[in-house]
């Protein structure tokens, strides 16, 4: 029997971004990214779900202390991205298109070193109530 349990922490951040590939001309960017390419940015309420899976510790009963997980997400992700312009204000997206896919991969990369390697980590990121991504797939 698999005795692993998944625990989840939900957080949110509000940020501006635009989708743009600097190696393409304006017409191609507009054709591929549509309104998301508009020059003055737009924004989203991002909802972040962090899933941590592992065997509950026999002494605490925890897979992971949720307060600790919450503090890590706040320090590593929310401080970086909340009320920021992802293209302009963050080093992570200076040269990387801030699609929901790339944001989820970046968040995984930021959180992974801060969480016990024995625990499995999965990121779900809602860009809008109707568009969301998951990493690792």
């Amino acid at each position: 029997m698999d005795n692993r349990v998944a625990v989840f922490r939900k957080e949110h951040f509000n940020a501006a971004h635009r989708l743009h590939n600097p190696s393409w001309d304006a017409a191609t960017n507009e054709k591929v990214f549509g309104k998301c390419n508009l020059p003055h940015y737009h924004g989203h309420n991002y909802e972040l779900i962090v899933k941590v899976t592992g065997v509950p510790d026999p002494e605490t009963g925890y897979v992971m202390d949720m307060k600790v997980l919450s503090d890590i997400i706040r320090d590593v992700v929310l401080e970086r991205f909340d009320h920021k312009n992802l293209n302009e204000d963050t080093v992570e997206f200076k040269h990387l298109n801030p699609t929901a896919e790339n944001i989820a991969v970046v968040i995984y990369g930021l959180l992974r070193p801060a969480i016990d390697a024995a625990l499995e980590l999965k990121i779900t990121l809602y860009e809008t109530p109707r568009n969301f991504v998951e990493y690792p797939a």
Partner: protein
Amino acid sequence: MVYLTRVEHFNAAHKLFNPAWSKEKNDEVFGRCANEHWHGHNFELFVTVKGNPDPDTGFIVDAKLLSRIIKDSVIEKLDHRNLNLDVDFMQGKMCSIENLVVGIWQELKPLLPATVTLHCIKLVETPRIYVEYFG
């Protein structure tokens, strides 16, 4: 009298920043919302009209028509835009949701069919913050 609400949505960038104030004062009053490079939201817009059902259609207004009016007059101007820079009816105003909901009301009211009265506009900025305006 029946109330009908149409829900639309738009995604936009903005910042709260009073150009008459110093950067320090803006930071003090508006905090992170004053970030000079903008931030953004998924806005939800609830437009409530009231009227009496037409005996032939049973409608107070064709909801599809109401949706088209909202989309053509307001959503088209706001969606995927920068509210401070790109929106004609927000020029010269502080870009709070309070001011935005009043601006949307003023844009929308003259365009509605005579069969209905605009009752309320509710604008949701985050799942935890929204405003309502009744004119």
